[in-house]
């Protein structure tokens, strides 16, 4: 298999502030370096340069993509994914480094670019096709196919401003889908559009890669990445953190980006609470594993300092989605407690929670009714999704996603 994209030591430096470098002197300095073909002086002295004034979006990124491969690109927001895509699609130039490519590159992100509302569907197909790099001949050859695919043949001579938004997107997508690029960029399509649109995009991706063309797939949807890609690049703070098989890289992405086992310790002075009870430790502990996903149970552990003895002492724990939605409340058994350190832990079993971001609040209660103190948002954590052999990569909604006993016949 030959290499179709070769990214070599690509860096991208953004200058912050609205006037670029800000001073005429450094403008001239840069211009001079550029004209004499030297490296950008600002990047080279990046260590000593005022870090506030520049932002390094990509730093020495290198990787190869072989023909026919579906390569996933993952990373947190701000890791440099978009910048990398911008460079690959030639919207902006790298500050240093090189990208070599074989063949035409197109992006499903560019759906509808340059559509003019006053022009008819027919005129826009030609215009949009040309913007995406097709010649008139190519568009004309595929015209009927495009119209058919879009399903707007009845309105093809109507200005697109009269289209419904659905028709508009379908027509735009139809043009992009018939580009037949050697390299296709699919950026976060699963986040927008309905199930139908998602299916079309994924269908197009499979179609493209099965014809020996290459796909770059950028997504936050790890399930889709895991199931569609052969190789994954993990970007972190503008650098390639890892390249490899999807499962391994995604696991490492989760590990790098979570506060699993997150532990909060408080000393005596800083401990939250009141004169009756103080929180000294809160911890989330994952059972059998390192990654908190829906298939793993986890234990919430707490330590408190009590200032008095209580004959009837208990806890009430609330779990909220980060959006504020109350997922559940659970109450501990009632015990008698002595002054001093008390420990409580609560096990949330595997296959109960849905994926998402959550926060835990816990209340210390005496006499089954008197609130000693309510500790709010003690722990925050994210539960990742984990799906094997699935064909649906969209969101599964619902507060919980329990594994229940099914009987099928």
């Amino acid at each position: 298999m030959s290499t179709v994209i070769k990214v070599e030591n690509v860096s991208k430096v953004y200058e912050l502030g609205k006037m670029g470098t800000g001073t005429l002197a450094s403008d001239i300095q840069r211009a001079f370096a550029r004209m004499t073909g030297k490296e950008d002086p600002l990047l080279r002295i990046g260590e000593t340069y005022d870090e506030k004034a520049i932002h390094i979006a990509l730093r020495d990124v290198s990787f190869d993509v072989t023909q026919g491969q579906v390569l996933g690109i993952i990373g947190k927001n701000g890791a440099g994914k978009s910048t990398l895509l911008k460079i690959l699609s030639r919207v902006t130039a790298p500050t240093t480094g090189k990208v070599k490519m074989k063949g035409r590159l197109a992006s499903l992100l560019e759906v509808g670019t340059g559509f003019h509302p006053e022009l008819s569907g027919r005129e826009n197909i030609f215009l949009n096709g040309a913007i995406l790099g097709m010649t008139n001949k190519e568009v004309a050859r595929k015209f009927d196919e495009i119209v058919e695919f879009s399903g707007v043949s009845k309105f093809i001579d109507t200005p697109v401003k009269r289209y419904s938004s659905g028709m508009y997107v379908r027509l735009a997508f139809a043009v992009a889908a018939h580009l037949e690029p050697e390299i296709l960029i699919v950026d976060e399509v699963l986040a927008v559009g309905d199930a139908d649109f998602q299916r079309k995009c994924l269908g197009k991706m499979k179609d493209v890669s099965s014809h020996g063309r290459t796909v770059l797939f950028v997504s936050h949807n790890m399930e889709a990445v895991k199931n569609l890609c052969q190789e994954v690049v993990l970007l972190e703070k503008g650098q390639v953190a890892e390249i490899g098989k999807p499962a391994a890289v995604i696991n490492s992405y989760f590990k790098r980006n979570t506060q699993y086992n997150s532990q909060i310790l408080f000393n005596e002075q800083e401990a939250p609470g009141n004169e009756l009870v103080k929180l000294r430790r809160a911890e989330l502990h994952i059972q059998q594993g390192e990654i908190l996903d829906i298939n793993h149970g986890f234990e919430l552990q707490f330590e408190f300092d009590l200032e008095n003895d209580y004959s009837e002492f208990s806890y009430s724990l609330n779990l909220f989605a980060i959006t504020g939605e109350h997922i559940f409340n659970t109450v501990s058994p009632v015990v008698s407690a002595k002054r001093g350190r008390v420990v409580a832990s609560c096990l949330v079993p595997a296959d109960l929670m849905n994926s998402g971001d959550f926060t835990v609040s816990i209340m210390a209660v005496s006499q089954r009714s008197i609130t000693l103190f309510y500790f709010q948002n003690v722990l925050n954590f994210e539960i990742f999704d984990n799906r094997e052999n699935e064909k649906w990569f969209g969101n599964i909604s619902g507060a919980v996603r329990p594994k229940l006993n099914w009987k099928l016949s």
Partner: protein
Amino acid sequence: MAALDSNREDWTQVIEPTEGLFKFNLRELWRYRDLILLFVRRDFIAVYKQTVLGPLWHFLQPLFTTAVYTLFISIVKVPTDEIPRILFILTGVVLWNYFSSCLIKTSNTFIGNASIFGKVYFPRLVIPISVIISNLMSFAIQCLLLIPFLIYYRQNIHPTIYILAIPFLILLLAMMGLGLGILVSSLTIKYRDLNYLIAFGVQLAMYATPVIYPLSLIPGRFKAIASLNPLSPIVEVFRCALLGKGTFSIETILYSTVFAFGILILGVLMFRRVENSFMDTV
């Protein structure tokens, strides 16, 4: 391994920081000729869609402008080298319209198209070139407007051999409009004030050009300053070609030509310098 090595030179695209100031990719521009024509079509059609008078606006604008200026120079009695005032003004206005609309529209290239440029690559010069061409079409239409007046006043005018030079004049005008326009558009990325400057700058420049007065009107000691304006000879030759009177010389025409080439080259260089990275600044 041998296969790999033989593949090494097959790259169809190499993306680099700066593609060299003087590496101007004409072949790539040629590959996008369809896009240029489609943009011309779009600009031309879309402007008058959903207007009552449609393409008639191409005539109305210069006609009204001419009427106002003609009235003005009739009142203050500006001599027009014995050319009928309406024809004198109309030739100037039509020519000036072409230059000013080229300049104003191309000077907005980067900022006005940032949303497209931010999503997809095509040679950025496609946009200003398509503007020049679509303006050329409206210029041609406006020139039709001259014909009835030329026929009506046929006794008072004396077309000269310079008529053959008109395409060359238009080319020079287009080069200046394009060159200045893309130069300004490259600079507006950093210095946004230029956008405001250009709007009234063009207006002022018209009064520095013999559009509503003949160059011959300018007294001797100001002539040197007036001849610094590279647009003047073009207007004067154009009038001489169609109407028979104009003040110019080989030197002034040569000066305009050199200026047109110079400004176009400078504009393209500046444009090339910023087109790869302007998205970071806009």
